[in-house]
């Protein structure tokens, strides 16, 4: 499975009649088993890019190649659960073929067993996020898209969920696209990092991480981050000058 993104541009017509460029040319490709990370400042057009890749927005110039039969699992920025369906129904509606064993395992990993029959309105944001993760994994996706899945969670919980994402991603061959503005998440989860510029977004740097995810210790992570910090520092001074 291979995802090829070749967006040559995306403009947005404002109510006042002017046109705004949201995306500059963006081109990258990902393979099954890879975790690609899109990192960029807020408002740079990451969400627009995701919508285009997911086929929700067809009004753009360029081309997206993904196998039409590819199953997509998605964790949106907000959990986007159906408030009128229970936690279990929410997962089953997206993944009708999921087996009871698989479902139980997911609920156990994400510690949702006690909440199966609860409605999303009764859950905290952290729990709702986990349900959204369970839903995305239950479909056994070929392409997994995570849009800031850990934003606005406390560090301890974010850390645990990040480990769970890593475990789940490792458990099957899946092409993962993670959008985040946390360098820490990016370095811990990603195989290839794409740094995006402010609007209109373009890729300013593509950084592969050579060390496999499961052998990345705290020391390695700190070293990668230090390397990246130097780079981005350079970028920032450049921008300040211009």
């Amino acid at each position, binding site marked *: 499975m291979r995802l090829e993104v070749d967006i040559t541009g995306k403009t947005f017509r404002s109510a006042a009649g002017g046109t705004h460029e949201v995306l500059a040319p963006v081109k990258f490709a990902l393979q099954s088993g890879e975790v690609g990370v899109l990192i960029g400042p807020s408002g740079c057009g990451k969400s627009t890019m995701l919508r285009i890749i997911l086929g929700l927005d067809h009004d753009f110039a360029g081309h997206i190649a993904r196998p039409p039969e590819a199953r997509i699992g998605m964790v949106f920025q907000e959990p*986007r659960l159906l408030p009128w369906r229970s936690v279990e129904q929410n997962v089953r509606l997206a993944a009708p073929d999921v087996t009871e064993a698989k479902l139980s395992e997911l609920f156990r990993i994400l510690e949702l067993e006690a909440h199966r029959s609860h409605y999303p309105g009764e859950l905290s944001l952290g729990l709702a996020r986990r349900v959204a993760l369970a839903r995305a994994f239950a479909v056994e996706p070929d392409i997994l898209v995570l849009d800031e899945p850990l934003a606005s969670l406390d560090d301890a919980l974010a850390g645990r969920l990040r480990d769970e994402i890593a475990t789940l991603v490792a458990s099957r061959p899946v092409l993962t696209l993670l959008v985040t503005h946390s360098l820490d998440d990016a370095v811990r989860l990603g195989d290839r990092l794409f740094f995006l510029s402010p609007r209109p977004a373009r890729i300013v740097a593509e950084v592969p991480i050579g060390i496999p995810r499961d052998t990345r210790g705290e020391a390695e992570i700190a070293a990668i981050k230090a390397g990246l910090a130097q780079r981005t520092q350079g970028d920032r001074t450049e921008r300040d000058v211009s």
Partner: protein
Amino acid sequence: MLRLLSFSLFLAIWWIAALLVGGAKLPSPPAVLQVMIAEASSGALFLHLGATLARVALAFTLAMSLGSAIGYLMGRVKLADRLGDPWLILLLNLPALVVIVLAYIWAGLTEAAAITAIAINKLPTAIVTLREGTRALDRSLDEMASVFAMPRWRAFRHVVLPQLAPYIAASARSGLSLVWKIVLVAELLGRPNGVGFEIGVAFQLFDTPRLLAYSLTFAAVVLVIETLLVQPFEARANRWRPRAA
């Protein structure tokens, strides 16, 4: 309990008023009850009530299903909204009496004419309510359904319909009361049976106890339908909402 208390208060006021103005204009509750029992034992009450209920059921179902479908379409498709809007405004402002009289002139004093005329009166309000409901649909949930490749019907049933349920309930409730009122006019003008016909007869004879006996029985039936059908539907549609403590 509170409802019962409020109902007894209504009876008490009625009774006192009846004593004040006299039985000819406003008969007392027992007098009306007597007529009710007489009409019920002769079977006439059930015949007329049944005829009216059947008309209400048919016209209501027709207007609700057609109105919901058109309203949903107009909420989703801009072109349909543009094309349908002038018709909608026309229908909304057409007096019920005009529709009924025209229907009887064009289609004769038939059952079909009566039911169509009643349905046409209810149709535009159902369309307007459902159009609003459709416009208020959460697009982010549509996107979720589309990303997870939910089949159309499943997405409609589990994503769209629960969002429309409060609008359908509101439309059903206001629609039911509208249809109740109009069905009597249609019966008065051109049907040989039904509560409206009986009220017409009572009016010609200035028979107030009979008039009240029929209209109150009818109101009681409406109350029962509201409590047994509409309210449970609303409660079911809203059971996922966190209840206020």
